[in-house]
């Protein structure tokens, strides 16, 4: 139980760091002077002190959706797979619930975008709806396929199972699913090449456009939600698709887990540096790959049988 | 028993005198009394026979006659007819009903034919009561084609007679003894006769290829002619077909079913697509009448006696009512459906709506039940045959064709009721007529009545 709470707390705390780490790594790779990877923590604290401005045009949705965006993500935090093999985990919620909770958060994020009557918000929501509607099937397909391979839809159990019995027979399905999931990781968290979190240019904005009206604490919470989401996706990825290290002793397992998270962050940073942002209507091509890989992964699994 | 003919003769005689036409039309309603009497008192001799079947058909026809004669009260105002024309109408109406009663009650094929011929020839002149070139031409056309059809019937009857005479001697003309001795009849000649008779009857009822022929006639004539055709004349023809097909069923059921199905389906095919293009009420209703006739015939030969009789009775009540209501519906313009139902006023609109929806067999119309039972009979005969899937396919095809008719009626009904149109006046006698028919139709779905109809052929 302590290990479980520790894991959740750890992921909660490390989330802003991962975002900051990617940012500074990217700057370093581009020969800029890197910011500190802990900058997001400072930003968060600073924003908490600021005054909150609400739009006159906005409604109660603007206030409520902040909670509804953050809360599901925080709940997901407690549903994540364990990083220690004998730790407690929640068995009564499964991968679909996680997918659903993330969609719930996105749903309110999109409403938030539309609430302010600004053209930017609508633009962001519209694009997000477009991307999310393509991400959702890929996500479900991947989850389906990995849970079939892991023998359990409850991802915690699947993680443990994959650790001990890696499905060599279905390695093709596994690889396809992992590629699909990685694309989802990029797309869901608004990373290049799907979205650029660093600019505020209307041609490229997706996520930023929706939260353009937010200030102060609201902005801090949404940023936190974004960081948490990235951490959650990374955790899912490393637990499900890099299934090793969990059954080591607890401190080694912990180190391996952190290393795996950093590896994901480095990969994301490298991809961000080496690709350009896609035009919006090219994004489906990328997501289409994810969907097709997810589908193929499931399909191969079905064809091969158990 | 012979007082059955009395009301008709009274009408014929009175039509030569100057009598107030309201009185006249109430005299004409007296045709119902002998029908009611005969419905409860059956008899049987060489020339006449009253059994459940023809007593029922006579009763239905008399109710229709009552409705039609009441509707005559307002017709002169509507069409601007003269006294003389009305007198002519009643004269031929009397002859018509005399012939009809004769043929419905006859036990003898020859007598049956004579009655039918009387009725046919009298309608020729009824068509021409309206002074117009159209009516004139159509009455000629009716005379020629009707005469051919009717002589085909006689020709067939003589063939049947010649086929059965060696067996039954003078009794060979009786329906009754034919049915009794059906098993021993020499097949080939009888069947040729039967097919000639049926072809003649089908032509007379406007089956393929005569669909537009009858539609045009009813279009050109006064509205009452259509009502008399669909309510009374065709019931007599159907009766003949009913009786003869009973014999043929024993002689060779497969031939009967094949012939009737092919003919009926061809008719339904043509009629449903003609209805799809119908542009005025009269043709619409008369084409739908043909459709129902072919359904009745198909139901009957499939063994669905109850369905056929119920369908027949329902059609005999609903269709004349619709023909008579056409007088109101097209009081402004022919060839127009738009808004015609709207401006009549509450009760008449309700009555006509009920009738229009009843004719496409929506519940609780008796036609709903009769169609279900009829198709059930068809499926039953399919299970007995060796071509099960083909027969089921036929049922399906018929249902599809009926759905085209359904679509057209719905379209017209909506247009008539919900689009803008000019208000039109409706006479009290017309409302009375419609109510009579609606009440008669509703009576049909009462359980005792249904039971009585079911008991007719068992």
């Amino acid at each position: 139980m302590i290990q479980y709470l520790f894991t959740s707390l750890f992921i909660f705390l490390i989330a802003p760091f991962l975002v900051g780490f990617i940012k500074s790594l990217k700057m370093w790779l581009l020969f800029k002077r890197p910011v500190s990877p802990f900058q997001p923590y400072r930003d968060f604290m600073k924003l908490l002190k600021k005054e909150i401005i609400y739009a006159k045009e906005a409604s109660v949705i603007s206030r409520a959706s902040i909670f509804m965006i953050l809360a599901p993500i925080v709940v997901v935090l407690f549903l994540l797979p364990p990083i220690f093999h004998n730790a407690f985990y929640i068995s009564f919620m499964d991968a679909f619930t996680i997918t659903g909770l993330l969609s719930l958060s996105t749903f309110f994020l999109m409403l938030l975008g539309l609430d302010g009557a600004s053209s930017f918000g609508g633009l962001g929501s519209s694009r997000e709806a477009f991307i999310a509607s393509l991400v959702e099937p890929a996500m479900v397909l991947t989850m389906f396929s990995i849970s079939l391979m892991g023998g359990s839809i409850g991802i915690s159990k699947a993680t443990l199972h994959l650790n001990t019995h890696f499905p060599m027979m279905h390695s093709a399905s596994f690889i396809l699913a992992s590629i699909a999931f990685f694309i989802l990781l990029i797309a869901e968290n608004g990373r290049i090449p799907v979205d650029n979190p660093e600019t505020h240019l209307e041609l490229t904005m997706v996520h930023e456009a929706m939260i353009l009206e937010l200030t102060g604490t609201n902005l801090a919470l949404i940023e936190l939600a974004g960081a948490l989401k990235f951490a959650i996706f990374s955790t899912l990825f490393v637990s499900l698709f890099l299934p090793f290290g969990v059954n080591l002793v607890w401190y080694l397992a912990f180190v391996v887990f952190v290393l795996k998270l950093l590896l994901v962050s480095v990969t994301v940073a490298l991809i961000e540096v080496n690709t350009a942002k896609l035009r919006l209507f090219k994004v489906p091509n990328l997501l289409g790959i994810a969907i097709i890989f997810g589908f193929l992964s499931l399909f191969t699994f079905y064809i091969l049988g158990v | 028993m012979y007082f059955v003919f009395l009301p008709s003769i009274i009408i014929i005689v009175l039509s030569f005198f100057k009598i107030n036409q309201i009185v006249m039309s109430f005299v004409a309603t007296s045709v119902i009394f002998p029908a009611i009497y005969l419905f409860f008192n059956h008899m049987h001799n060489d020339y006449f026979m009253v059994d459940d079947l023809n007593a029922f058909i006579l009763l239905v026809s008399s109710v229709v006659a009552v409705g039609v004669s009441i509707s005559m009260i307002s017709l002169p105002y509507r069409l601007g007819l003269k006294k003389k024309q009305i007198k002519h109408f009643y004269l031929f109406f009397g002859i018509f009903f005399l012939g009809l009663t004769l043929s419905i009650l006859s036990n003898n094929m020859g007598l049956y034919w004579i009655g039918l011929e009387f009725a046919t020839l009298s309608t020729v002149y009824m068509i021409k009561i309206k002074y117009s070139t159209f009516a004139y031409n159509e009455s000629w056309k009716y005379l020629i084609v009707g005469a051919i059809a009717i002589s085909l019937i006689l020709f067939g009857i003589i063939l049947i007679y010649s086929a059965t005479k060696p067996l039954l001697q003078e009794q060979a003309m009786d329906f009754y003894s034919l049915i009794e001795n059906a098993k021993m009849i020499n097949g080939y000649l009888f069947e040729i006769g039967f097919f000639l008779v049926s072809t003649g009857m089908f032509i007379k009822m406007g089956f393929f290829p005569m669909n537009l022929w009858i539609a045009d006639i009813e279009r050109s004539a006064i509205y009452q002619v259509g009502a008399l055709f669909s309510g009374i004349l065709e019931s007599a023809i159907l009766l003949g077909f009913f009786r003869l097909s009973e014999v043929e069923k024993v002689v060779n059921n497969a031939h009967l079913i094949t012939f009737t199905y092919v003919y009926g389906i061809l008719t339904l095919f043509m009629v449903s697509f003609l209805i799809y293009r119908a542009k005025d009420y009269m043709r619409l209703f008369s084409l739908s009448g043909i459709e129902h006739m072919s359904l009745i015939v198909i139901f009957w030969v499939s063994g669905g006696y109850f369905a056929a009789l119920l369908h027949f009775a329902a059609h005999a009540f609903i269709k004349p009512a619709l023909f008579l209501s056409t007088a109101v519906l097209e009081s402004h313009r022919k060839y127009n459906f738009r808004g015609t139902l709207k401006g009549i006023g509450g009760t008449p609109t309700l009555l006509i709506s009920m009738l229009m929806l009843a004719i496409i067999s929506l519940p609780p119309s008796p036609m709903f039940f009769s169609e279900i039972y009829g198709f059930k009979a068809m499926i039953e005969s399919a299970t007995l045959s060796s071509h099960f899937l083909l027969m089921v396919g036929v049922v399906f095809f018929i249902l599809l064709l009926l759905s085209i008719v359904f679509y057209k009626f719905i379209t017209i009904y909506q247009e008539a009721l919900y689009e803008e149109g000019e208000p039109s006046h409706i006479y009290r006698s017309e409302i009375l007529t419609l109510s009579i028919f609606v009440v008669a139709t509703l009576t049909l779905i009462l359980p005792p009545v249904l039971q009585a109809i079911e008991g007719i052929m068992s």
Partner: protein
Amino acid sequence: MFSFDGLSLLFLFLILLGVIPNLVYMSGYLSHIERKRHFLIHYFMFIVSMVGVVLSNNLLVFLFFWELMSLTSWQLILTNSNAETMKAGRFYFFMTHFGFIFILLFFLLIGSESLFADFDSLKELLANFKYPTLLFLLITIGFLSKAGVVPLHVWLPYAHPVAPSPVSALMSGVMLKVAIYAFLRFIFLLPNWQIEWGVIILVLGAISSLVGVLYALAEHDIKALLANHSVENIGIILIAIGVGMIFMSLNLPTLSAFAFIAGVYHSFNHMSFKSLLFMSAGGVLYATDTKNMEKYGGLIKSMPVTTFAFLIGAISISALPPTNGFLSEWMIFQSMLGSNGLDAIELKISFPFAIFALALTGGLAIACFVKAFGITFLGLSRSQNSKHAKEVNGMMQFGQILMIFVVVGLMLYLPLIIKFINESLPIENIYATIFPTPWVMKSVNENFGAVSPILLTFALLLVVTFIAIFYLSLRNKERICHTWACGYNTSSKSQYTATGFAGPIRRFFTWLYKPEVHSHKQTVAGHTTKFESSFYEVHVQPLFEKSLYEGTKKLLNYISYIVYRISHFEKTKYSVLIFNLLVIVLFSFRVFYNEVTWGSVVLEVVIITIFVKILLIGGDKK
């Protein structure tokens, strides 16, 4: 005549759940209807007929109520008569009649003994029937055309929106479920299910769900949008039923039971949230007098209760946790997870496809309801209609609130509902397996799926409370200001429209939508980027309507034209026709009398051709 067995009572319960809030809502809506007496008569008859269908226990009574249901709903569609409702009414009534043909044929085939036999006694008869697949196809087409399954769904987006809103709610929410009831009722009577049947239903469901949601996305009419979503949800229900049928035919009763429960539970859920959505959409229509979403905006400020109701419905229909919509979709996914290890190749192909379709549907549904909710209720008013909108009257609010209770109740009392459903359907009792404890629902497959709506709700509330406490403890200052619009004034015109919102998706699915764009703009002299006024409108082409329905109509027109020509030709030549007819009849009789030989048939054809040529056609030239 009537039966009160499990299945009937289950759907009676469904009808009551849908009808009672609707009655309250309707009493508020009534002031908006012109022909009150006509409406009320048909409204109550409609409800009675639905109850009658569900309770009837013999074929004739069933058919009677079924047709009565069509008839009354048709009249209800025509409550406000204008060109739109007339088209919809005509279309609807014809399509129901078309389905009725199949139902009738089915009943006739199985009811050959007696039309008054009760359903249970039909079972033996059906076991001996020679062509079970024929029966299956008849049931499928007959009942599912009423349920609005692709490609027989085209009437639905026309018919449901034009009815008065309480009726739309009833039709979409309840009547479609009556069709599902009938389908279930009769499919369970059929013996020996074949695996192909299940696959057919599964594929139909998958296609319907996709097509429904895609056309919903492109819709600007809020009620038509909801109606298209009904197609989608019926598709989802059918996916579940199809999966259940497949498992049943593979002799996996537990999995099959789970899938059937999922399907029926989704029917309940769809009833609840679709009724709710139609009610609140009706409220919006009531207040703004337009169905066009482009004219809405900002209604959340003037109509809070309606907005809240719509929001709940939207979350639920988008299958977001922890709502009931999510739970049933979760169950459907779980039942599909049981499909690994199946051998048949058609299953190996159809299952991934169905999963994909369902997943894509979920994603698009979210997008669609963000659009519906966001454009309608958020932002600024886009027209005078919505600017002066007022909250609907008390009865209508109360009706919506009651329906919210139904939605929430279906989620919270999940174990009870599942138990009820399980015991009512003729399937294995798996309640104890699904609910070892009432808190957590477990899947029956070996994949340990589990979900707990109550705990999830509780967790969400807890987290929200925590954040709220944290938030309040900061005690930040608040300021109200206009939305930043790059230095310009914020105006309703600069907002995104429904068309714009769906733009990217529409562009992605261009091959399906084939959109027609109508646009023109009035530019200020000399400038290409500045314009005084502009107009942009997109209409998607309904593919199925264009191809299937217009095609059929064209064919009908063509045939009828030919028939018409023939009939007019015959007009002048009756005697010739009779002559030929006689020859044909007698000749055929002669040929078919004993044994048919090819020679005699050919002879007949030749002779008849000569007669027809000389008499009918040859004479015409002269």
